[in-house]
């Protein structure tokens, strides 16, 4: 029996209705129904616990009032570069039925936990990015607005051999909705073929009445690279898991994250990498700022398997606290099964450097302005990684707006 409560009008009929409206093939209906069946037995995603404390309280989510499966609405703009397909999920099923069938659920098992199953059973929107062999594409943007109480989405990225693509997927709140709280969920699967390159950026700026759950996972083949950029500014509570499985020799990944919390926001952000082949490299960089009574929870996992010879794996997490009411919890983990590894991680928590601040105020910069400049500077290592210019500008201006 799951610890979470089932939404009121969630039934087989609801799921059939969603699938029929979208004229889906049998396999997808079956997958939705299986996910629905599994809800009974699945648990919520794991949350870190220490003696007497639970870092994020997902049990408190009241799905009955958050989720309305038949009332989902979004407004999504997709722009594609030449030579590739950026399609809605429904279009993709028509145009590339085999591709979608084999990619769907290939990196994320829909029945992995309660929230993935809920998402897989109910999603009504989504995007498929398909980059054929040898094609280089840039600046794919998927900009979504959520216009309903709850919204479930599914994103698939498939890159064939020696192709490359840079992507921005953003989510924000559109029309206001008559509800106390809202729920957004997105599952992102990337299958990066041999020697291909993907940079996938995500920008979440939902209204602060929204609970958000996203799981993003890449299967990285030989000589392929998947770089993630994860930006979180909005929502009441965000649970975000960004994960790479380095399954091919010489595969690489970067997981770069930025969050900026204020008021009562709670960010539970996680970056995980599994080294499963030889000569693989990973670099995990997360930078976060907390103001007011905001709280952050971070888990970073570097897992080096028995056969992952000649691994390089690095992780850094830095949190700045702007307010005394804020709280930062962090757990960077190393799990190493092969000695032919160079691995390190570090984590810091602290205030804006007082000497830097003193230097700037001594140069006649107003203290608040000086602090804000230092905070903006703190995010530079993340901003520098972003290849989609629009994304970098958006993130910069959102950070600047929060500091005003």
């Amino acid at each position, binding site marked *: 029996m799951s610890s979470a409560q089932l939404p009121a009008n969630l039934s087989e009929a609801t799921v059939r209705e969603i699938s029929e409206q979208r004229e889906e093939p049998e396999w997808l209906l079956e997958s939705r129904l299986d996910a629905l069946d599994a809800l009974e037995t699945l648990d919520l995603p794991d949350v870190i616990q220490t003696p007497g404390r639970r870092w994020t309280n997902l049990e408190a989510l009241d799905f009955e009032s958050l989720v309305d499966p038949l009332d989902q609405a979004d407004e999504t703009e997709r722009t594609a570069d030449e030579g590739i397909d950026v399609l809605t999920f429904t279009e993709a099923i028509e145009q590339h039925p085999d591709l979608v069938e084999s990619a769907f659920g290939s990196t994320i098992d829909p029945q992995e936990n309660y929230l993935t199953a809920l998402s897989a059973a109910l999603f009504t929107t989504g995007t498929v990015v398909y980059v054929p062999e040898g094609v280089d594409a840039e600046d794919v943007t998927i900009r979504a607005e959520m216009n309903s109480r709850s919204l479930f989405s599914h994103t698939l990225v498939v890159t064939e051999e020696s192709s490359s693509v840079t992507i921005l997927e953003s989510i924000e709140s559109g029309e206001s909705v008559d509800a106390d709280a809202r729920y957004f969920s997105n599952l992102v699967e990337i299958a990066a073929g041999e020697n291909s390159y993907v940079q996938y950026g995500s920008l979440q700026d939902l209204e602060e009445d929204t609970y958000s759950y996203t799981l993003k996972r890449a299967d990285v083949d030989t000589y392929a690279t998947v770089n993630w950029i994860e930006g979180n500014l909005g929502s009441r509570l965000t649970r975000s898991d960004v994960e790479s499985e380095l399954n091919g020799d010489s595969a690489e990944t970067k997981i770069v994250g930025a969050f900026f919390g204020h008021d009562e926001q709670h960010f539970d952000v996680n970056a995980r990498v599994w080294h499963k082949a030889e000569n693989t490299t990973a670099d995990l960089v997360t930078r976060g700022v907390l103001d007011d009574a905001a709280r952050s929870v971070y888990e970073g996992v570097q897992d080096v398997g028995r056969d992952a010879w000649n691994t390089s794996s690095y992780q850094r997490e830095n949190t700045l606290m702007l307010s*005394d009411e804020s709280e930062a919890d962090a757990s960077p983990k190393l799990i*190493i099964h*092969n*000695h032919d590894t160079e691995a390190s*991680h570090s*984590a*810091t928590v*602290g205030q804006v450097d007082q000497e830097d601040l003193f230097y700037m105020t001594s140069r006649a910069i107003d203290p608040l302005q000086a602090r804000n400049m230092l905070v903006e500077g703190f995010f530079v290592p993340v901003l520098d990684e972003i290849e989609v210019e629009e994304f970098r500008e958006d993130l910069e201006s959102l950070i600047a707006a929060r500091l005003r």
Partner: protein
Amino acid sequence: MSSEQDHLKETDTEARFDFKKEAASAFETEKGLTEETVRVISEDKDEPEWMLQRRLRALEQFQEMPMPTDWPGQPDLSEVDVGEIVPYIRPDVDVRAGVDDWTELPDEIKDTFDKLGIPEAEKNALSGVGAQYESEVVYQNMQERWEEKGVIFMNMDKAVQEHPDIVREHFMTKCVPPSDNKFAALHGAVWSGGSFVYVPEGVTVEMPVQAYFRMNSEGMGQFEHTLIVAEEGSEVHYIEGCSAPKYSAFNLHSGGVEVFVGEDAHVQYSTVQNWSKNTYNLNTKRALVEAGGRMEWISGSMGSKATMLYPASILKGRGASDNHITIAFAGEGQNIDTGAKVYHNAPNTKSTIESKSISKDGGRTNYRGLVHIADGAENSSTAVECDALMFDNESTSDTMPYMEINESKVDVAHEATVGKIGDEDIFYLQSRGLDDDDAKQMIVSGFIEPITEELPIEYAVELNRLVELEMEGSLG
């Protein structure tokens, strides 16, 4: 270098720890754990009623608590069946509370400690020595000059009788209540032996006091309790050593250590653990540190089949500080899960944690640590550094730190590295004429030096010897 190597070969360290003695006991309980067992132990010790009541309450808590099984990557405890353990064995010694002259001990017990080098160390480097054999302290002595200053160093059982007020106030109440974890509860029900150390205000005990714990019988559990009360401005260094011969059945060691560090007092607690590789070592060690006090935990975990040990410091008073130095060495079949816990509950508190681990031949080490900075503990700082060295890809090295920061005016840093033994370093040493084994031993000795240099020379040598013994096993 070569003369030191020869010296090592002459000293058969393995034989020094692994010899067995014919088990001869005056009294032992049945296997297993029931209220009856607890009453029998308490009665055999002629304990006051309050202690019996505490034991029975702890037993109740033990029975209610589930086995810890859901920690990520934790050692497998499924073999630990308390029903198969003999919790209490009183060795055949005339003087119930232990003697203060080695020659009064039965030959086989005296011989045991001679082989372990305890009386020799007492002469040279220690202020006092306690020695526990099975469940009871058989020897306890302290130099007179400390007794004159009011320092107490005695067997814990005797302290229950002779210092009931201090013991009743401090024993498993504020520091390690039995409800803390299942094995603390077990400990509270069947504890026996251990040390009581009391250092009055302003007294500095210049040379360390030491307790040595030896399990000789197969299938027994040892549950000694150590209580250290260091009053304001005092200073003491306590060392514990542990060993047991290897049997096929499992042994269980579940000690409890409580340290009260008074204002501006300084306590160092050093452990060199070399339990046999059939021993489950599940301890609870904790210090409460008052304003300006300083607690140092120094641990070398070499032995045991599985260890779960996370010495904790609760920094209660302004300006209290903590220093953890940990080394773990896991060889074949060993799972050493160890780390540190620090709670910063007051302003201006400081902690540093330094952990070194070595895993080889399929062994697993894990650093599991928690640093908690409470709201209001401003100007606190913590620095955690974990380094792991791995010898092969059968072994596992995990690092799982947890940081909970509720205060903004803090300086928190955690760093960890994992790597293999450097080929270049080995090459360099070989080019200077060392063979492969010697080069690796030398690199490992260098790797753990920050730990060994904190120990008195006798123990540093001992720890190095144990490490080298482990290394020989793998490379020979």
